[in-house]
């Protein structure tokens, strides 16, 4: 199918399906508003699966559609343009799925990929721990294989969407004697069991995007390990770049919508007449163009080549840009941005302002991105 024909198909499907009950989901969910319409968004995931819109780039023999990156980008663009809701199944689709495609056994693929593709099985990521944030290799959650089952003990933190997830992919220490990233394994753990406790973390928005997950003799079956025991670090790192892949361009259309809403606010209340605000609005727009151009050049230049530091560069660019947009959003509103509705009900501008403080921390903080660029991109010596 030609790209423009594909675009029309996507657009028609979204228009036809973001109707009825699903019409209420437009603009809902996503970072800063994960608490919104959770049950309805889970139903939307199933609708996406029925429509064949999950796993667009996955190989056909694994149940995907094998579409070229240009059409994957088109899907994300149209998805953002339609204001379709923030995904719940993206962790399975964009992180666990590609990991299984790369490292999983045929049995694991057959067992887990269909649930992701049909939008019926939700995943969360069990990487970070209280004492293993940027230093991920310091993971202390333990897993032991006893009587044909993995037994997990420990604590994960900053686990997005743990409360709706059916499964968690966990980086755990399976060889207590091994140092650092040796001795880690990549395990697939069901969330609905007595040994798993989830506690939401109230964030600075007052809502809960993230959770703590406690494993108290939680179980996973012996076959639920991706790669060999002790190979978990390589498996986890193998798909880390995927997190910042093709979805970048679609994400930027979301940014474009947010920018336009800030611009409309500035025009509406006259703050655009303030030279400082006007300059910041122009800079935000220029920054958006630069990000889009940079992302396009990355996609166009390196189809199928080994990832360099483009993903790290893109993350630094967008995280910092988005955070500045959040600051601009409340500055444009002015004094009334200091007041909330009842029960700490936040406006879009306030929510953007607060939630974007996390952008420069999660998914590899700005400082970690800089370390990677300095070492792998520029070849500077380690400190």
């Amino acid at each position, binding site marked *: 199918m030609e790209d423009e024909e594909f675009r029309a198909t996507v657009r028609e499907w979204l228009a036809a399906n973001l109707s009825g009950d699903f019409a209420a989901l437009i603009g809902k969910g996503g970072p800063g508003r994960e608490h919104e319409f959770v049950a309805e968004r889970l139903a939307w995931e199933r609708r996406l699966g029925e429509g064949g819109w999950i796993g667009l780039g996955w190989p056909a023999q694994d149940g995907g559609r094998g579409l070229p990156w240009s059409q994957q980008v088109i899907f994300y663009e149209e998805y953002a343009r339609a204001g379709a809701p923030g995904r719940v199944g993206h962790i399975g689709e964009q992180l666990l799925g590609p990991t299984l495609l790369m490292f999983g056994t045929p049995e694991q693929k057959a067992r887990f990929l269909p649930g992701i593709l049909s939008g019926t099985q939700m995943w969360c990521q069990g990487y970070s721990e209280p004492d293993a944030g940027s230093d991920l290799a310091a993971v202390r959650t333990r897993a032991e294989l006893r009587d044909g089952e993995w037994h997990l003990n420990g604590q994960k933190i900053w686990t997005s969407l743990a409360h709706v997830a059916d499964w968690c992919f966990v980086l755990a220490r399976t060889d207590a004697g091994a140092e650092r990233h040796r001795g880690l394994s990549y395990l697939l753990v069901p969330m609905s069991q007595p040994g798993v406790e989830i506690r939401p973390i109230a964030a600075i928005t007052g809502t809960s995007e993230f959770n703590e997950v406690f494993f108290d003799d939680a179980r996973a079956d012996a076959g639920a390990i991706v790669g060999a025991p002790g190979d978990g670090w390589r498996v986890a790192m193998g798909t880390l770049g995927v997190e910042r892949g093709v979805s970048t361009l679609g994400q930027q259309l979301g940014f474009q919508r947010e920018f336009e809403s800030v611009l409309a606010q500035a025009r509406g209340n006259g703050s655009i007449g303030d030279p400082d605000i006007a300059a910041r609005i*122009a800079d935000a*727009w*220029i920054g958006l*163009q*630069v990000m889009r*151009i940079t992302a*396009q050049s990355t996609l166009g*230049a390196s189809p199928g080549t080994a990832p360099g530091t*483009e993903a790290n560069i893109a993350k*630094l660019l967008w995280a910092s840009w988005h955070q500045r947009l959040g600051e601009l959003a409340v500055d444009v509103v002015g004094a009334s941005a200091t007041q909330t509705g009842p029960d700490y009900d936040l406006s879009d501008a306030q929510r953007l302002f607060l939630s974007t403080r996390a952008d420069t921390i999660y998914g590899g903080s700005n400082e970690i991105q800089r370390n990677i660029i300095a070492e792998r991109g520029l070849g500077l010596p380690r400190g």
Partner: protein
Amino acid sequence: MYETDSPEQAALREAVRDFCRQHADASAWKRLTGELGLTGLAIDERCGGMGAGLAEVAVAAEELGRVLLPVPYLSTALAGAVLSEGDPEAAAGLLPGLASGELTAGFVFTGDITVAGGRLSGTAGNVLDGGEAGVFLVRAEGGLYAVRAAAATVTAAGTLDQTRSQATVTFRDSPGLATGADGDRAEELMRVLLAAESVAAAEHCLDVTVAHLKNRQQFGRPIGAFQALRHRCADLAVEVSSARATARAAVAAAAFGQGDLGVLAPLAKRYCVDVFWHVAAEMIQLHGGIGFTWEHEAHRYLKRAKTSQLLLGTPGQLRRLVAHRAGLY
């Protein structure tokens, strides 16, 4: 998409790079034009040119800009490109000279120039490459006029950036040839070329700085191992990488009409030259005392960056221009 060099562009880039390694001095002009034909890249072969286009001019401008070769390439090559888009008869007397490099050009976009009966009067300052220009291409009253330097009073100025001349040019009833070319487009193209050469220069500054940080030892280790410096270099790498993409998008708009040149040209000029300025300033800081010396090359890049930043639209002016053209306000 103009994402990477075509094989021909890559060969051109390598040839210019190779040339710059061997002839990085002012006497390079003759060979650069005669042997390589760089000023004629965007001029038709019937007029003595190479029959390529603006994308190739940008490649040459980048490589000459990377080493700050002190030649009036930018204006002369741009004159060839712009006149080729105008009235062929008017250009016929100029293009062969520009292609051979015997005639050099300077563009006049500012000043209070008036036109009466085909004669130009008025004064313009800060004319880039104006010190040695043989012909001036003057935007005035909606047209682009060619005026021979002999018919004008040219006062070369001392310049902060000693690798690119400037002049104050005064016309007094000077005979001007209507070229039929688009003066406004010429200004945007100059901005695009400044953006492109700035990215190459910024790449050079970053390369040299990173090499220095790997080599220079203090406290018993290479200073590039200190995170305070590594992170600054990483930020520069992010800026240079995004500026590279932005300049290429602007060149694609200039050469192939992809995208809106009216927005992309000032946007790229502002972004890329600001990045160049930042990298050059950091180059001095990260080199320490040696970076402050006349002997080290860093100051020449800093001065080129500041000069490019303040000419053809300051950062503030270009920001407003982009905002207006994008319809923001």
